[in-house]
């Protein structure tokens, strides 16, 4: 059985997995990091987005063995103690969520965008979130939240 070692939210972890074990299964089932959601399991919805070596990926479409040696950040890795990450705070402030199912993936995708583009236009945000589906909000407040969160991240630098 292959063994994978990775850094998850700054913590070194390792687990015995099968070749077919998905990264999201390790995160949720072995590490109990259930903030990363599985919406579709078919690479469409983006609820499972995490960062692998700083880049957003759909963790339902990455094998755990592919993340061996990598640094993984999940939604649980963003806040500093009780202090929300600026992108999380912006989603709260701008009502960027209703049921919250899509939110972890939305926030992780948004943080990746903000790291590349500190002042994204509405169009930039909508294009970037192409792979993140929300059933509740109608997206308008998500877009507002991402723009505000990106600005807050840039200001906090």
């Amino acid at each position, binding site marked *: 059985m*292959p063994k994978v070692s990775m850094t998850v939210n700054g913590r070194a972890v390792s687990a015995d997995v099968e070749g077919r074990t998905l990264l999201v299964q390790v995160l949720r089932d072995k590490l109990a990091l259930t903030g990363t959601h599985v919406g579709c399991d078919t*690479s469409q919805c983006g609820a499972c987005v995490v960062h692998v070596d700083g*880049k957003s990926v759909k963790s339902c479409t990455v094998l755990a063995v592919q993340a061996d040696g990598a640094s993984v950040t999940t939604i649980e890795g963003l806040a500093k103690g009780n202090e929300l990450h600026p992108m999380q705070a912006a989603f709260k402030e701008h009502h960027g969520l209703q049921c919250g199912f899509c939110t972890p993936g939305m926030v992780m*995708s948004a943080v990746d965008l903000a790291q590349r583009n500190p002042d994204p236009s509405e169009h930039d945000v909508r294009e970037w979130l*192409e792979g993140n589906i929300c059933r509740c909000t109608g997206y308008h407040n998500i877009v507002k939240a991402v723009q505000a969160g990106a600005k807050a991240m840039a200001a906090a630098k």
Partner: protein
Amino acid sequence: MYEFAYHKPASIADAAKLLAADGDAKAMAGGQTLIPTLKQRLAKPSAVVDLSGVKELGGISVGGGKVTIGAMTRHADVAASADVKKALPALAALAGGIGDPAVRNRGTIGGSIANNDPAADYPAACLGLGATIKTDKREIPADAFFKGMFETALEPGELIVAVTFPVPEKAAYMKFDQPASRYALVGVFVAKTATGARVAVTGAGSSVFRWKDAEAALSKTWSAAALDGVKASAAGLNADIHGSAEYRAHLIGVMAKRAVEKA
């Protein structure tokens, strides 16, 4: 997913050996097509040979009128490459329009063209520019590479190493996205080269194809107006809930003109 053995070789030679030794083993690049296929149990490989540890398959080089992209280069890296943007902006833009950011961070050019999805974007650039596909065994011109729906000239176990694109005088790609998947409902790549115009169409047929009538018209006069009287035939084109064959044929003309204007 059925269980499989997992290998991560560090060289092309080792990867080729693993694939040659086991006919049921499958190469994996970004996994963005392969993992969903395995989940649906549409394939049952005995082993997966992960190419991500093979350094020789990476890298972008530009020079001498050519752009060469290693098979394992991710779509996001082609889209962001300053060298590609400068030498062949149509290719960088095409890569940046594939799927969504998470897919672009994993998916590779080698995986895309080996898969030859009838609606994939890269095959249109390969055929539209007259690229050369270098494998671990030989060099294959794009005109002989894309054989049919999900079918290529690759032999079992043969690995794509890199794709070389000749830099044209002008080129552009326009795609009419299927709005849910972002795959091309119809995508048209046009290129003005020293030896004439090339026009490649994806999404419309069972596999990418060249639109020869448009090439002839554009070789005479490179302008969108030159395509005014040229109609793509609907015979044999795809028809599904997203659009009829006639609609796709119409879109080919529209996208080709827009691409010429953009080039």
